[in-house]
């Protein structure tokens, strides 16, 4: 009980940190990694809310597919934002 409440407090703060870093980062590959970190924070949050079905879909799509797609797309443009 107390661990899930702690996770419910820590995971959103972690996601805010990752979102802020992703938005302000100039290196797009690093920004994609921060975005994956935000997804991991959300997965922790969903697991703390005990929704394992959503966690499985969310972690596969947002950490795996979405990050891979972003890396593929970045490889077609420039790595650094001007």
């Amino acid at each position: 009980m107390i661990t899930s409440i702690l996770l419910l407090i820590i995971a959103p703060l972690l996601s805010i940190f990752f979102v802020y870093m992703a938005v302000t980062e100039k290196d797009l590959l690093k920004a994609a990694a921060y975005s994956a970190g935000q997804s991991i924070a959300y997965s922790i949050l969903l697991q703390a809310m005990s929704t394992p079905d959503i966690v499985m879909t969310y972690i596969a799509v947002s950490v795996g597919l979405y990050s891979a797609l972003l890396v593929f797309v970045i490889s077609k443009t420039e790595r650094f934002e001007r």
Partner: protein
Amino acid sequence: MSRRIIILILLFTATLIASFTATIILNPATPSELKGLAKYYVLNTINETASPEAVTAIVWDYRGLDTIYETLVLYLAIVGGLAMFKMSEEALLKTRIGLTLLSKTSTKIVALLIASIAAAIVFHGHLSPGGGFPGGSAVAVASMIIIPVFAAGTLIEKGVSSTKLVAIRGAALTALGLVALLPVVKGLEIVTNQRFYPASILGLPISGSLSLYNLFESLAVASGFTAIALYLSIPEEAHKGGSGA
């Protein structure tokens, strides 16, 4: 850099203050018992669909038609995406050099691990959390790390072409449609589960049509995303060289 830290601390404080204020003002009480609809699903899922997993039962049985239309929408989206890439396989064959031996070996191990977890998610989807879409996307993640490491050209030489992948996808979706349509032959309504399909085969609990839907959905999702990744992995230079020559 220090500006970033100050803004982050401000954001954290604002979030904490806002959430504590909201908790104190709204004072949301934790529900102590299930409400009507939830109670119905929890009590009746195991008898009506032969599956202890209420989520899979709702997705593929109670709301089965919704999910089939959703699959159709994803199919059309991926077909549209593939139609935008007008690409010959010659351009793909130019990308034949992968990464180093070290990354190839470690990718083999990691991809095998991901694929086995995906198989567990798919084949156990009607009994425990999981199902067709999460399992299929996990397989797609495995193929998405294989494609850049081993290079698309090498995979095409070994017989993995996007045409074949789209064919697998089409076949899987046709099978999914047939599973949904077969009960109509006996005069039952479409997407019927327990009145047409058996709950178990040779002692294995398959929960009627739920495990079949999971299997075909995962095949369709995995092959669709792999086809997209195969096209996306072509570098821009190969693309321009291909069209110029």
